[in-house]
């Protein structure tokens, strides 16, 4: 096989791998793209742009999300924050235009629907976040956020905390995810305090930790 043929073969293999990797995430990608675009709109509103039409279009395009089960708790939380920001910026009142009032009502409708899934509307930080890359408190805070997102993702379809723990341990071992390892440890300790038999899970946790350290 010539040099060029070898490279073409490798190219084909890599393209195929990436295609399949993205295809596996197709549904999630659709949701995340929608949330990204909502965030872009919120950014525009924050900058003083009149994006009433775009917001209306977004609601029209994504209305079906409220009827199916593709959204996870973390998605509702993310959207809740964005809706909160939009609502603060548009200042809906009795004197507002019908379009603004309609958007305000639509946000309320989404919030109400989402509240059945324990939607948390969080206010964003008042000031720009400081550059704290080398600050252990900030690093730990970031880690906690990622752990929270991971738990929201994995707990969406789980029937019991033990099944979530099983998933986090698998993720910690197979993907060598640090967040999954820490979340597993947290769940195990929680279950231990609740008098569950956690020894088998501790064993798996140690195995996952060993894998992440390069052992096993």
């Amino acid at each position, binding site marked *: 096989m010539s040099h060029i043929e070898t490279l073409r073969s490798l190219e084909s293999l890599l393209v195929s791998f990436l295609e399949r990797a993205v295809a596996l995430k197709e549904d999630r990608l659709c949701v995340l793209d929608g949330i990204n675009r909502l965030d872009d709109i*919120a950014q525009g509103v924050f900058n003083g742009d009149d994006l009433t039409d775009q917001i209306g279009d977004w609601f029209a395009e994504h209305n079906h999300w409220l009827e199916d089960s593709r959204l996870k708790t973390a998605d509702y939380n993310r959207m809740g924050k964005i809706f909160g920001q939009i609502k603060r910026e548009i200042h809906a009142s009795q004197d507002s235009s019908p379009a603004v009032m309609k958007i305000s009502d639509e946000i309320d409708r989404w919030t109400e629907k989402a509240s059945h899934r324990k939607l948390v509307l969080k206010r964003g930080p008042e000031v720009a976040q400081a550059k704290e890359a080398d600050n252990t408190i900030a690093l730990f805070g970031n880690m906690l956020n990622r752990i929270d997102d991971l738990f929201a993702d994995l707990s969406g379809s789980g029937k019991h905390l033990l099944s979530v723990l099983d998933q986090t341990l698998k993720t910690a071992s197979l993907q060598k995810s640090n967040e999954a390892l820490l979340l597993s440890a947290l769940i195990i300790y929680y279950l231990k305090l609740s008098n569950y038999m956690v020894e088998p899970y501790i064993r798996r946790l140690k195995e996952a930790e060993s894998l992440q350290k390069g052992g096993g």
Partner: protein
Amino acid sequence: MLNPSEKAYTLALLALKRKDYRVAIGYFERAAPHFETNKEFNLLRDTTRLLVEVKEKLSALEIAEDRLEVEEVFSNGQEKDVL
């Protein structure tokens, strides 16, 4: 607003879906601060980087090969019968 790194990761995946690999790398770089310990992220980013490098190498080799053919066909300023 959403975490910029999370947005960038999504945009990287969308670029991969469009087979816009060079653009995907740019978004992966922007997402990296938040995902540097995420194995899946690193795998996708590194695979995309490798793919772009392979494509660049292939492109260079193919251009060189085309040039050789042209030189062969027009050696001494005269067109040769290539069949």
